[in-house]
């Protein structure tokens, strides 16, 4: 089993001042897996993702990706190794067109250039249904389009591991289905996907395994059914 482990988070700790946002969290994601990460607001999901993607540096513990220790690697190096993420609050490159947004990861992380990169960007946009907006300034997109752009841009980095941070918040159920379909398709091509989501229906449908965080600690891990049955999870979500 351990040969299969693709991302190994080993008792990672992150503190902000006196407040421990993550307290010795460990989890392992297998190659090609669809992995769900849930937890109430402020439970440390995004902090954990930040530590994995390199936006934050863990105070303690180790993070291993493939066979490389990436704990202290800067974020852009991790992206080049194959970890790409979308942001919960969309952070497009506002002054650029939609397609140029994709060219950044294509050039910087995936090593593409010229016409080939442009073609690849356009095909990703087609996949996301954004091709009509390719030449529009990304600042002019709607919220939903921006979410799609987030995902599209992450895909443009040609990731081996894609971290989708609440990509579906605010989408209609049809759109949620669209995105899910895209993520499924990506996964079929061999990309490992970590999904952080509030929309339970989506997480449960998508994930093979799920980890639950509460107050900076992992309180449960297992298949969707296991998680739904877990008392501690219920308590964490519904309170006492």
């Amino acid at each position, binding site marked *: 089993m351990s040969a299969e482990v693709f991302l190994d988070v080993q008792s990672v700790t992150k503190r902000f001042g006196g407040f421990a946002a993550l307290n010795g969290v460990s989890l392992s994601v297998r190659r090609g897996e669809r992995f769900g990460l849930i937890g109430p607001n402020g439970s440390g999901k995004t902090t954990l993702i930040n530590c994995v993607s390199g936006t934050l540096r863990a105070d303690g513990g180790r993070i291993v990706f493939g066979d490389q220790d990436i704990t202290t690697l800067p974020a*852009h190096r991790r992206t080049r190794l194959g970890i790409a993420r979308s942001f919960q609050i969309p*952070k497009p*490159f506002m002054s*650029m067109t939609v397609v140029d947004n994709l060219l950044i990861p294509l050039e*910087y992380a995936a090593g593409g250039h010229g016409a080939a990169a442009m073609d690849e960007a356009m095909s990703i946009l087609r996949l996301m249904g954004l091709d009509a907006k390719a030449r529009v300034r990304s600042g002019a997109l709607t919220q939903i389009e921006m979410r799609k752009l987030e995902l599209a*841009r992450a895909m443009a*980095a040609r990731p081996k591991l894609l971290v989708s941070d609440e990509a579906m918040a605010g989408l209609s159920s049809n759109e949620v289905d669209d995105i899910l379909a895209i993520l499924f398709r990506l996964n079929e091509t061999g990309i490992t996907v970590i999904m952080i989501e509030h929309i339970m229906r989506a997480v449960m449908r998508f994930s093979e395994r799920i980890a639950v965080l509460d107050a900076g600690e992992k309180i449960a891990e297992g298949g969707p059914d296991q998680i739904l049955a877990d008392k501690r999870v219920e308590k964490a979500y519904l309170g006492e």
Partner: protein
Amino acid sequence: MSGRAFAVAAVVVIAGGLLVAGLGLNQYYYFAAYVVLQYVVLATAWNILGGYTGYVNFGTPAFFALGAYTAVVLIKWLKAPLLAQLVAGAVVAGLLGLAIGYLTLRLRGVFFSIATLALTVVLQTMFVNWEYTGGARGISLARPATAPFYGSYVQFVFAVMVILAVLAVATAWCIERSWIGRGFAAIRDNEEAAECMGVPTLRLKLLATTVSGMLMGLAGAPFPFYITFVEPASVFDLNYAVNSLAMPMIGGTTTWVGPVIGAVLLGSAQQIATVTISSELNLLLVGVILVAFVILAPEGIVGLVRRLSRRDPA
């Protein structure tokens, strides 16, 4: 503008400049044009960091002065020719850019701005206390009796500034067109996202501060021979900071044309204002224009023109 068109334009400007320098016009025009061109270099240099990556540098005077004082040292020590002064000025100012970038660029943008402000004060104090370069009293420098190529040194220095201006603009143009330029823009738009998309932000920022610093030093290096008298208060003048920031703002910060337009417009306006209306009004004008532009036309003249031209056909 395509690469070829730009190259042709650059050659035409240089040839034109060298020709004009040879005409032996009224000296005043060379002096005035020198100042405007110097601002083209400074504004372009500022914009490479401030406009492209979004890091506001208040320390233009520090880099400019370092270029000028490097030249002073070379003149005094080795009687070095202008070319050597230019190279040395650029290198030293570039190193300063690298150092200050390394110190502060891991922080939020405003901290960098404040650090550059502090840097200016520290550096000025150093030169005030360094007797070799004249200290607070300043230093008078005799320029060579004859200038190479042209009869008078004024014409020669003007010609050099033409070349430097084209060089600076060409640098900006190249950066803008390359993957580096897109990386800069990504940093400006959202640094965190840029880093997560594989952009080595720290390294690119260091590149920007270094190149920007080099060009500013380059602008300062001919100053001693232009004015023949250097003292800390005049080269560490806050006005260099104001103008090199205001000009791109007025012209537009996202393209290489913006700083050029801004420098030519504001620079010439100031030259004209100096000899027509009172300078107080001149300063007031800069303030009002700055506020008006940043509120009403945040993308500068370039953005304004773009907006209008987009509206017209529709």
